[in-house]
């Protein structure tokens, strides 16, 4: 098992490095960053000197190699907007995004599991149709539109929730996070509800469930202890994918709610062509995504005794 973990970690490092190379390469072609450091009236000669001193005239593979070498030491360069180390800027905002994503996922599961279970247990009933209808709608609504609607209804008309920002203190922060978390998590909620329903239906049709019923076990125990425990596995598998969706969805959601996380940071950085910050932020997000996927795979291996990691 340890060998598997080490192997996966090595793979993850390669994957993250690959991602960084791709992003670096893509952004490298967006233009000459020397112009961002230059002042108004520089001559061509002065520009060339500046370019040379900053190392921007080296071929792309040399620049990239230097960048990668530095980043292994944790030095992602300096942000052009904030004039602070990129690592510091990103890590300042990271907890906000992580909390938002975790809350969104927790809410998603909290709602999806009851909906999925009830839909499966009372198949073809009103609850089933309503639950699945809600799920299908949830997968079709664009997250920024949902964010707008939530803002309009709950912040604008009813005034129950604040419009922007993060708030201070635990309760206040939760208060600020709730609407964006709902907007962020709805897609995952809908998908998991459908997944759980279809898997639970399949599981409940199995022979061992029939045996349990024949034994006279209470239906509730059958459904939860035997049914849901087995049906929940694909939800765990999809969890890794869900986190990817959450992390990238946070870009849009944080923009709508002006929530100060890494997503909003990334958008602003792209607008301002803050090259080091963009690469740094994407790298950090990629690392988190990869680590989360590894955790999910390990969890899945632990939950399902049929899986053996050689």
């Amino acid at each position, binding site marked *: 098992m340890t060998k598997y973990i080490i192997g996966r970690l090595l*793979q993850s490092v*390669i*994957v*993250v490095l*690959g*991602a960084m190379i*791709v*992003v670096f390469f*893509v*952004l490298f*072609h*967006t233009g000459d960053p020397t112009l961002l450091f230059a002042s108004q009236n520089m001559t061509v000669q002065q520009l060339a000197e500046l370019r040379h001193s900053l190392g921007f005239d080296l071929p792309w593979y040399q620049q990239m190699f230097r960048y990668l070498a530095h980043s292994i030491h944790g030095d992602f360069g300096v942000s052009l907007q904030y004039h602070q180390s990129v690592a510091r800027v990103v890590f300042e905002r990271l907890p906000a995004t992580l909390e938002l994503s975790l809350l969104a996922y927790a809410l998603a599961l909290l709602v999806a599991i009851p909906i999925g279970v009830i839909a499966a247990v009372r198949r073809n009933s009103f609850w089933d149709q309503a639950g699945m209808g809600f799920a*299908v*709608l949830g*997968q*079709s*609504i*664009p*997250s*920024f*539109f949902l964010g*707008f*609607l939530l*803002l*309009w209804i709950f912040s*604008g008309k009813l005034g129950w929730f604040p419009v922007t920002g993060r708030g201070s203190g635990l309760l206040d922060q939760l208060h600020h996070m709730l609407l964006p978390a709902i907007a962020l998590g709805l897609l995952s909620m809908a998908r998991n509800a459908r997944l759980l329903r279809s898997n639970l239906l399949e599981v409940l049709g199995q022979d061992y469930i029939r045996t349990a019923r024949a034994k006279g076990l209470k239906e509730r125990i059958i459904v939860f202890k035997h049914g849901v425990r087995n049906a929940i596995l694909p939800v765990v598998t999809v969890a890794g994918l869900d986190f*990817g*969706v959450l*992390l*990238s*969805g946070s*870009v*849009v959601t944080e*923009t709508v709610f002006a929530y100060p996380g890494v997503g909003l940071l*990334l*958008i602003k950085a*792209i607008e301002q062509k803050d090259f080091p910050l*963009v690469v740094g932020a*994407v790298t950090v*997000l*990629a690392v988190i*995504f*990869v680590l989360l996927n590894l955790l999910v795979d390990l969890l899945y291996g632990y939950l399902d005794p049929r899986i053996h990691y050689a």
Partner: protein
Amino acid sequence: MAAITSTTELPFADALPKRRSAAARLLRSLLRRRLAAFGIIVLLIIIVAAIFAHPLALHSPSQGNVLKSKLPPAWMSFRGQHGERSYPLGTDENGRDIYTRLIYGARVSLTVGILSVLVGGAIGVTIGLIAGYYGRIVDAVLMRLADIQLAIPSLLLAIALLAVLGHNLRSVIVAIGITAWVTYARVVRSQVLSVREKEFVEAARAMGAGDLRIMVRHILPNTWASIIVIASFGVASAILIEAALSFLGLSVPPTTPTWGNMVANAQDQIITGRWWLYVFPGLAIMLTVLAVNSFGDWLRDYLDPRLQV
């Protein structure tokens, strides 16, 4: 005894299941799933609206009449102003007709949706075929590439690609296509792996068929069903990604109305309460995606209910 020429003349003909033509089977399956039928109708309406945008439009999509700005939809009044029939869904603060902009926006969404799926599908199917067929190192390298791409959230990759390719329609199609190829590759690859060792492939090889011919003529036809289903869901996903990109201002230039940038333009208006500015484009996106998803669900069940997609 008279010769029996078809199954209907057999003595127990009534007990046999009736044969249905392919067309009849399709229609019956459609009618059973009313949601899917509704989805297809909605899709057809949107496609027609997109193609015939010019004659269907009431005003110019980008040139507004400032005298008619901030009108509510035709059936209601808002802060003393009443809507007008010729601006059925209201106007924005520049006096541009929302209904017209919606129709023109449909063009962008549908074009991006369909074409980006073609691009992504072409790339993905090719890579999946090659990886599955040749196996070993080629397979390992290509799948590592796929993993690397999956480590970057697709929206972010699209944003990064657009920064390089420029913000125009063609770049958006290519960028979204590039973010989507992995799913096609994976599914095609697993199909190839299961079909590769079958006898008819070996027979074809024995008859002298080259690799390319085997891949295209023998293996690929077995994968069409999965590809088509993935493609139909891919269209919905592409429409959503394009909407998010144009909401962020990173898609086509703002002179072309898209549903996403209509919502973005309406951002400041939430406070003023002019809901029609963002509710209609948002609903348009939602209904289109819903229609495509319903169609995809039906398609998957029709083609093969056992499909693991």
